């Protein structure tokens, strides 16, 4: 499904992502772990088009998508969440989810080819103002689906659906982000530390939700520091350090890989190695 070959990104003298190869099969759940600054988020940015690689290719379902804009990648079914949370602060919770579904609005966003495509925005404007039955039905259906997505988060978001996102707690904002990503109807879901800043209960709840998503057969790439969760959810774990992939395999294999232990210990001498912690 996703094939990354020789992907490289340099910032000045620093090579944040260094000739990374990575494959994700359809329906697979792959986690990327590694110390801070290992290049995980940069890799996400490269795959989702927010940053341009200096070298290497990314293929999605066999198609070369290197250098495509984030807009095009979204239309191809790549959805992501952001490490530090990027909800639309002044939009209501429900509107945030509906923006996630933007690429699926077809009736109101006519797609024409050739020179006619210049007229698309005018058609979109006219349809938004006139709102023929088809457009109304589409909006209503998307709303239904958005409410169903909110329902997945139990009582966390549904009662707050009309509240602006800035008024939510940090954990709820992360939930809105995941809901927004689901609304895109993703072929590939990329989650960047979805449980960052959450307490244990919230983390467990999130793990449950992501586990449910996995069961639906969705292809998921997860960046996460909480290794308990990684080990339980992942089909495969990829370990990055200083821009390189240093290990890759089933959770049990990676857990005992000396290189991985060294990477963690080498960077966090003062702390207990999280890999060991997870292994206990």
């Amino acid at each position, binding site marked *: 499904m996703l094939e990354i070959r020789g992907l490289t990104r340099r910032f000045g003298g620093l090579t944040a992502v260094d000739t990374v190869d990575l494959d994700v099969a359809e329906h697979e759940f792959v986690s990327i772990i590694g110390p801070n600054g290992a290049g995980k988020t940069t890799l996400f940015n490269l795959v989702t088009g927010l940053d341009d690689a200096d070298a290497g290719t990314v293929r999605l379902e066999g198609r070369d998508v290197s250098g495509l804009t984030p*807009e095009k990648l979204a239309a191809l079914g790549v959805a992501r969440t952001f490490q530090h949370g990027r909800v*639309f602060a*002044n939009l209501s919770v429900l509107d945030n989810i509906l*923006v996630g579904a933007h690429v699926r*609005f077809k009736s109101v966003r006519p797609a024409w080819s050739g020179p006619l495509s210049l007229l698309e925005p005018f058609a979109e404007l006219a349809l*938004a103002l006139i*709102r023929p039955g088809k457009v109304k039905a589409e909006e209503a259906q998307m709303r239904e689906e958005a409410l169903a997505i909110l329902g997945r988060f139990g009582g966390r978001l549904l009662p707050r659906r009309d509240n602006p996102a800035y*008024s939510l707690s940090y954990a709820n904002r992360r939930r809105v982000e995941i809901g927004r990503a689901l609304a895109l109807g993703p072929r590939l879901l990329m989650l960047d530390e979805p449980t960052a800043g959450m307490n244990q209960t919230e983390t467990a709840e999130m793990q449950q939700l992501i586990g449910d998503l996995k069961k639906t057969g969705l292809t998921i790439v997860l960046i996460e520091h909480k290794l308990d969760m990684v080990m339980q959810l992942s089909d495969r774990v990829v370990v990055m350090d200083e821009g390189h992939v240093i290990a890759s395999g089933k959770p049990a294999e990676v857990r005992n890989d000396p290189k991985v232990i060294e990477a963690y210990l080498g960077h966090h001498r003062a702390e207990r190695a999280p890999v060991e912690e997870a292994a206990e």
Partner: protein
Amino acid sequence: MSSWIDYTVNGIIIGNIYALLAVGLALIFGVSRLINFAHGSVYVVGAYAGFLAVTYLDTPLPVTIAVVVVVGALLGLVIERFGLRPLQGYAHIAPLLATIGISFVLDQLVQLFFKPDPRALPSPLLDIRFKVGSGTIGALDLVIAGIGLASAGLLYYFLRFTRLGWAVRATAQDRDAAQQMGVDVNAVNRAVFAIASGLGAVSGLLVGMYYNYIDPSMSFQATLKGVVAQVVGGVGNVPGAIVGSLLLGLVESYGIALFGTSYRNLFAFVLLVIVLVWRPNGLFASKRQTPPEPMTGTFIAPSKPIQIPGKVLAGAAAVAALVPLVFPHPYVLQTLINSWLYALLGLSLTLIAGTVGLVSLGHAALLAIGGYSSALLAINCGVPVGLAILSAGLIAAFLGTVLVFPSFRLRGHYLSIATLAIGEIVSLVILNWEWLTRGPIGVSGIPSLSLFGIELDTDRSVYWFTLGVLAVLAALQFRLLGSHLGRVLRAVRDDDVAARSYGIRLDRYKALAFAVGSFAAGVSGAITSHIYSYINHETFNAQLSILALTIVILGGMGNVTGAIVGSVLLVGLPEVFRVAAEYRVLIYGLVLLLLVRFRPQGLLGTV
């Protein structure tokens, strides 16, 4: 002046004067990431302080300069105290808007004290000119060059060898780190504002002596020139600002030599837009350099908008429609007609600056495009007035969007500056494109309003017409905001990166919002031209752009009802209380300043 040497000397001298302004702007941007729009006011105050000293105290040149520096520095401290310090932690655009407010207040105070008429500021130096090749250099030229060099030298010494200078450089590099290392950032800001304003004030004095002419309206152009020079050299880059200033001076001087005086500013602004769009880090930044901090320019204060039920709005519209029957007084009607016309402008800007987050500072240009289009279509082509107004709206939508489109990639301050420059360019093109626009003479004999062949020749009919247009466009805008487009536009404003990641093509939706907004502004300008029957390139001046922004912030960004309420309050109320025109601008400045500080979400809240 005839020789190239003369033009070169003139360019370098003007460049020196710009450099005194631009260096200050660069210093201020360096430590506070603020483009100080009150800088031109400091320059004007400097010029007038020099004028007072020379005229009434008969001071010799060195003393005059000292007086001007002190006055400028004190003023700089005041600007820092009211424009910057209280707004720390606010949206990045807030201090910028505050300095616009301060500049309105200062300029207007100068105008109230000294009257708007120009004054002579004689140079105390003998008019000696030295022959250099085929040209000449005057004594004042040498003095200006000397002051420029001396200031640069002093500044270099200060930044390089004094403790406060180190603190300034440290703060410019990393404000938070400097603060944690014990640098008193407020003291640095004060020092920088004082130095920058001292230099800016001297610049005003020198310009006054160079042309032997000062007037209060020099302020705005001075700010713009300083900003142009600074952007060309790289924002916040002090040596770059000096080079940019000299370059700007030379480009202007040669431009005048080749095309004539009225093109002078056109070159400056075209240069600015080109640099902004193609080299946003300035001409001298290496490509690998990280761009200046991306400033999300949206002025969005989180707030829940006050919900006004549709029935209440419909009721208010009905009451407004009944006014001519209840109070048929022409003064009341004309005041309200004016309010409705500004409300149209407010609708336009609240969509563009509020809903989609493009804080335009050149909105008056859309009025001008609309006004001229409608007037010229009606006069030259005999188009019926109703159709001309509609066409003018469409022309404004098209031209406005096409002109601003290249700037859509800019963010925050940069987009605002680009729109400001584009606004000036439109006004200068109108001035210079004589065969079409009749240049400085303006367009007269514009037919009065009529619809389907029926003359709207009473105040009452004009009132209903403008109110009707406003009601229709406001209703359409409500419908737009309620559709998926409202959602998408607000998402673009709140977080453009996340919006792109969800498939939203930014250019397309920014253009869409800009086109819809420009239509309303174009219609407003068109109706205005038919009511006035005469317009020229100054009818829709840059002050209107700022008034429009104040209306929008007062009502609440993106808030349709707010735009109408803001317009009635800011345009209608002063008229009802018969506030004299010169105090009005003062009020607009104060309102803007207070709003930014105390109620950034406006009266009705951000939508």
